[in-house]
């Protein structure tokens, strides 16, 4: 089973977490065009390789954290300094 390094709980099985997806920067909702907003909602890089993404520890401490993961091998480690 794939294990993720929760910054607070330590290495835990991937089934304890919820994948929130690629880190994307959210445009300002009040000033963005519909097209810009939809690009943010729907379009993703979907890379085969190292990606930076957000995970949520649903079955544990319920905190969000940022992870670097290789989407082919599923090797992963925490992003330095991110909380």
């Amino acid at each position, binding site marked *: *089973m*794939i294990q993720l390094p929760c910054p607070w709980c330590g290495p835990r*099985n*991937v*089934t304890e977490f*919820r*994948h929130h*997806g*690629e880190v994307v920067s959210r445009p300002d909702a009040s000033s963005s065009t*519909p*097209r810009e907003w*939809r*690009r943010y*909602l*729907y*379009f*993703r*890089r*979907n*890379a*085969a390789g190292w*990606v930076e993404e957000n995970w949520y520890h649903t079955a544990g401490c319920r905190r969000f954290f940022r992870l670097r993961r290789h*989407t*082919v*091998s*599923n090797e992963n480690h925490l992003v330095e300094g991110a909380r």
Partner: protein
Amino acid sequence: MSRGGVGHSAASSRRRRNGRASRYSAWRLLRHGVSGSRWPRAWREHPIEDSYDAVIIGGGVHGLATAYYLAANHGIRDIAVLDKGYLGGGGSGRNTAILRSNYLTPEGVRFYDRSLHLYQHLAADLNFNVMFSRRGHLTLAHNDSSLRTMRWRAEVNKMQGVDSEVIEPAEIKKLVPYLDTSTEARYPVLGALYHPPGGIIRHDAVVWGYARAADSLGVHLHQNTEVLGIDTQHGRVTGVNTSRGRISTPVVVNCTAGWSSLISDMAGVDLPVTTSPLQAAVTEPVRPFLGTVVVSGTLHVYVSQTDRGELVFGASVDPFTSYSMRGSLEFAEGLAGHVLELMPAVSKMRLLRQWAGLCDMTPDYSPIMGPTPVEGFYVDVGWGTYGFKAGPVSGEAMADCVANQRPPQIISSFGLDRFDAGRLVGEKGAAAVGH
């Protein structure tokens, strides 16, 4: 008599030189059986040319069907189908081979029903036994809102001329005697959407049938040929770079499903697609006891029994993105638990193997088909967990789109531009079991 390797008799070489494949028939079967002569290869290997009128990237059912219909319906034969591995090694070889058209939206129902209609006479059209077995398809409802959705789907289906109806537990029990339809179940079955035209097919045979038919019409099939880059100039496609050299072409069609973002990146086209593995598993063969395909959205599982007697299971996509095609223990555990809720009698059956394929998931669980902002670059992607059943209609529609340079009516709602415009076609309830 030795049958090592694959060879050609002089007679079969003569037949193949003019491009027409020798016809399969009961008479030929008898002749080959009695004489011990070798069958000709189903498709030929050609040296790769440095230019083609169209290049299709992806040698699965979608890519091969597109090539076949371009040649058969539009007379465009100078086509190459490229695959980085073997034909049908992606989703086409990894799915659970279920065919149905009981979708939710009118455009979805029309689309998938056209595909089912093509599948029904595919064996005759391609002269290849694809083993379509019309079993009937049951989507179980375990709560009131689910039953209401089944009724909604049944009515939309009927309006499009598709045979679907909601049936009660007593009728379900008659169709599937081993199903637990009692009220003591944790999630009792309240009813089901029954779709008699649905069934199963031999997925590999569909790939091979299209490949053989396309080859006989002059299409070049290039396996083990990886696309490394796509050349564009002034906003239009000029060629592809492959592991076997450069091909100049004005038309490129992306039929790579789980890998579609990687290919579209090469052409500078963004897609609203994320790739997740979809796992499946198969048990040891037992005598036939399950004559219908059974699906449960609430229990996130679907099951059918093959002609060999094995139970084939599928469930929802893995809950995170990945390009890995391996099975996992948590999938097998979850699947087993849910299947035993439905059919407690199978508890002693042994799981033989599990695997995964890659699914290009879209935000609305509908495909992305047609042109892109790069001229000459077409996509037939976003097939998620529902691509195999759509193979024939997608090939037919994409061939029409490429030949006539505009998307045909049947796929007009599935364009890439719908995301910028906010016109999504929501089919999650009918497309998947992961709710």
